[in-house]
């Protein structure tokens, strides 16, 4: 059982468990926003990307249309595509393996894999697969638990579930705010979204901030 002792295995397992547990928050939030238990579980099984999942339930739950929800979720999903670009040359897989690898290409599997760089390419591959599958299993189990729990609770406000959703978004964005530009962008986006909410159709105040991000990126490049 030397594999169990391997540091890569331990890194993967600890990340899988902690991140997977967030699934409770997602399952509960999805049900609080009007999604069924089945729909909540399907989002975790098929979309399998936390930020995108929270986005689609958040936008639609706030009264936005399907297109607004899907667009916001997809803009957040672009980064998984970039992770794929990084991972493909390391994994070197084709056919069915590549189909599976793509599905588990997320923040955590990519992050753990890249953090194993000093241990060599085989450790990087091991980290990717173990973390990808680990998060997948725990994320889905905990989503089901959260969704069933929220369904049993009834009124979401009485249990604080309506505040759990923005808190989850805050928890997702907080570690990304690394410098003044990031923080300024975060504040600008928040203010823009609040101020335009009474005037724009639901969803647009959120999607519109992607334009602010692009402007910020281009300006910084100059």
């Amino acid at each position, binding site marked *: 059982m030397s594999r169990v002792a391997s540091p890569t295995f331990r890194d993967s397992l600890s990340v899988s468990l902690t991140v997977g547990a967030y699934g409770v928050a997602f399952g509960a939030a999805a049900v609080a926003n009007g999604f069924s238990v089945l729909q909540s579980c399907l989002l975790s099984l098929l979309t399998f990307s936390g930020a995108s999942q929270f986005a689609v339930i958040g936008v639609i739950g706030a009264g936005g249309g399907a297109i607004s929800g899907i667009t916001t979720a997809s803009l957040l999903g672009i980064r998984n595509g970039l992770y794929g670009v990084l991972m493909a040359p390391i994994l070197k897989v084709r056919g069915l393996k590549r189909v599976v690898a793509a599905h588990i290409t997320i923040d955590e599997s990519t992050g753990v894999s890249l953090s194993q760089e000093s241990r060599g390419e085989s450790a990087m591959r091991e980290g990717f697969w173990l973390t990808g599958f680990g998060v997948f299993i725990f994320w889905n189990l905990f989503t089901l638990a959260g969704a069933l729990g929220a369904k049993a609770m009834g009124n979401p*406000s009485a249990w604080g579930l309506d505040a759990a959703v923005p808190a989850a978004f805050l928890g997702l964005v907080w570690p990304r705010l690394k410098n003044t530009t990031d923080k300024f962008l975060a504040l600008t986006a928040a203010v823009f979204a609040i101020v335009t909410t009474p005037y724009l159709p639901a969803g647009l105040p959120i999607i519109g901030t992607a334009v602010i991000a692009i402007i910020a990126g281009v300006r910084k490049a100059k």
Partner: protein
Amino acid sequence: MDTLWIGVIGTSVIAYALKFAGHSVPEKFLSHPLIKRINLLIPIALLSALVAVQSVTTKSAIVIDHRLAGLGAAILALFFKAPFPIVVLSAAITSAAVYNFF
């Protein structure tokens, strides 16, 4: 098919398409520094907007209620470097307390 189902299926299809595309395009195609930077900034903007909209708006109105107290608790928890579940839990408990007792 209703909005919820379209949302579930549409999000899932595009999410997978994006992941698979990444594994299939040549590396230099997406590694332009500008694309990389914008890719880091877009989640910051969208997630911040979602925090704001979910805590102080209801439909198309700005509403200050128990949720803002919950968000305050979450910010406090993050300042003390609390892990994600504690952040969410402290927001939920605070918000529920304000909702039920005030």
